[in-house]
């Protein structure tokens, strides 16, 4: 099966949905709503200016209609005699089964799936051969962190935090920082579990009720984590908004990029996950505006310097000064 396959076309999915929704009859307006939610903005789909609605609701010439619905007493039903209560079954494709089998090989999946679920899926897929295998991949430019010593605690913490997130409840916990300082009985609202592709670690983003600010913690350094029923003045969505608003830079970092030695491509790839605007100044010169989170500023500065002499910060001056300071210090190290 090709990854780019017609059965995954959104209109295939839309027809699938319409047929199943019509099992017990659906009024025209209800079908139009499903179509409206799922189709492209451009309505014309057929050669003779037909819309998808025309084709589904049999408004075209006989051989131009899908003919998969039939109208009876003001409602539409699947046009097939003897359909079951669920006219179309839901089944995974070969590619999806291959991906699910690869999922079972990931360490972290055991933190989410119970033993029963894991074993059931493993049994169902035991004879299925998947080309998605870790041995065919190698990740580079990653960060190799020391092994987590107590994986049992890590897994337990992960489960409790995930549960708290789903129930939208605060947690109480102890945390030990990298210098060995213990912070006891802290209260926080979990905002999300964050996965880093570079170091393969899960961390928890929270809003600390004690410190009244967003914080990030390693899941494995937490202990005695429990979901609590305490009243806190903030919910998860508000905490999220605070993170987005308070931590977002007011002014962007403006870069000038000269396209030498693939600097442009490297630069744009490096910053592809950030909100940005770009324009071409002349043949080989580009300007990019990067909007960023303040907690990420140090990483961003290091990334900019790492791109070398063809990427220059235009503003803010504060960042220019910091880069110049570091570069001067580097030159001094060779003197």
């Amino acid at each position, binding site marked *: 099966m090709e*990854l*780019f*396959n017609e059965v995954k*076309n959104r*209109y*295939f*999915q839309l027809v699938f*949905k319409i*047929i199943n929704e019509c099992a017990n009859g659906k009024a025209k307006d209800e079908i139009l709503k499903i179509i409206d939610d799922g189709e492209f*903005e*451009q309505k014309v789909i057929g050669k003779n200016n037909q819309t998808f609605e025309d*084709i589904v609701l049999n408004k075209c010439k006989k051989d131009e209609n899908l*003919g*998969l619905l039939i109208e009876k007493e003001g409602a539409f039903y699947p046009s*097939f005699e003897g359909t*079951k209560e669920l006219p*179309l079954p*839901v*089944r995974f494709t070969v*590619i*999806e089964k291959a*991906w*699910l089998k690869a*999922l079972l090989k990931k360490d972290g999946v055991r933190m989410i*799936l*119970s033993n029963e679920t894991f074993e059931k899926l493993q049994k*169902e897929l035991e004879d299925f051969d998947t*080309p*998605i295998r870790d041995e*065919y991949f*190698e*990740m580079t430019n990653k*960060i*190799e962190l020391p092994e987590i010593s107590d994986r049992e605690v890590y897994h337990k913490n992960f489960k409790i935090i995930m549960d708290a997130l*789903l129930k939208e409840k605060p947690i109480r916990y102890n945390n030990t920082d990298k210098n060995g300082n213990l912070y006891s009985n802290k209260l926080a609202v979990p905002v*999300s*579990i*964050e*996965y*880093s592709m570079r170091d393969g670690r899960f961390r928890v983003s929270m809003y600390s009720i004690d410190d009244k600010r967003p914080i990030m913690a390693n899941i494995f350094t937490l202990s005695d984590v429990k979901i609590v029923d305490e009243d806190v003045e903030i919910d998860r969505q508000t905490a999220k908004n605070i*993170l987005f608003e308070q931590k977002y830079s007011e002014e962007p970092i403006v870069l000038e990029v000269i396209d030498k030695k693939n600097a442009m*491509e490297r630069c744009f*790839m490096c910053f592809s*996950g*950030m*909100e*940005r*605007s*770009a324009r071409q100044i002349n043949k080989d010169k580009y300007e990019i505006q990067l*909007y960023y989170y303040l907690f990420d500023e140090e990483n961003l500065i*290091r*990334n900019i*310097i790492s791109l*070398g002499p063809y990427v*220059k910060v235009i503003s803010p001056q504060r960042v220019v000064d910091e880069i*110049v300071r570091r570069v*001067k210090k*580097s*030159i001094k*190290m060779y003197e």
Partner: protein
Amino acid sequence: MYSDFIKNYNIIRGILRDCFLYGCFSRDGMEKKRNVSSRKVSYEIRRIQQYVEDKYIKFDKDGRYKLLNLTYDFMRHSDNFLINTYMTKSFTINSIILHFVILLYLNSTGKPCSLNTIENGIAQNSHLSFDKISSKTIERKLIEMSEELGLLSYQVIKRTKHYYIANDILMKFTYGEIKELLMAVSLYKNIIFPITAGYFTKQTLESYINYEQKMRIENVDIFNYRQVHFHPVIEEQVLWDILIAIHNRRKIKINRFSLKHPNNRCVSNILSPFKVRYDVRHGRLYLISFTNNNKCVVSRLDRIESVELLEEVFTREDFNEEYQRHMCCSWSSVSLDEGNEPEDVKLEVIINDESENYILDRIINEAPNGIVEMVNKGQYHIKLKVNDSNEIIPWIRGYAGYVRVIEGKELAQHLLEDWKEMLLSYGIV
């Protein structure tokens, strides 16, 4: 059907990359960069605007020019919107009708049926006219739906294939277990390549919950990602073909885009595909393969147009040592040239303030196989072996002010010149 659908994903790969990664080209700029007609650029841009949700599309203005820009913020958006571009393959009206009629019929009978039975059954039970659809077409569709897609299975009775709806692998799962699975799929859909397959799996699982379980789907929005690039998805059709070749030990030929002339192609020698390397920092995928003469060939996936699977097979084990020899000291994609030895590099890390000790930890964690030695308090030496020291220059530059090269004369000189050029670019002589 529908001019906005496409037969081949390659039609939009180039322009999608240009809009998403760069977002700085006007239509005119795009025409020049891609060396294609303005009509083609207009078609492709219009398609992308259809495929991608409005919230990710931004039009910047540069004088009189409009610049199409696809952008997102990793904290706010964890769903890779480029996946939508994989849901656009063109199809014929007969193909979609046959697909659903076969499923409707086999689901209603609930037993294995031969081609003949299916053909008669759908003619009798549907209100459709099958004058234009031949038995051969129905047979081809059945083969596609069973062998290629896996939506049907078949058993052979008296040398005739009897088709039925594929087994439901989730039949023995409770609703709670299916919800657990949805959670795991939601998390890993951005992590396991091909990412597109993860999103498809999530979509099917949600349909399953909705229709087979008749339960409401709860939106799982509790995961966020760092350093997860969205753009590698654009290369996943090629990645999938490569994985099939690696897995089946099939040799391949690859058709590459020409760098200077995007409309030109060149075909590679016969290759044994061995491994895919993913540069996490830049979001680049590479294929590491070997020629029949054991020469190591590294190919960027964004420069591969298509992969041709050959009948000839290879033995994977033959290349284990070769791969190690060529790539063990590569930081990203540079292989070791024949007859060369890896370069020795020695770095000095200076940490003046104890509060900056984390910098040393970070450097050690980022340097694969680096050997660290503490010389004095706050002074450390790190020995590395690398295929090509040019590959580690960006990494060293990132630690400006903390690291200097003490072994690797050319590397040290290169870095010093870079620093001076950087100061010069800021107007400091």
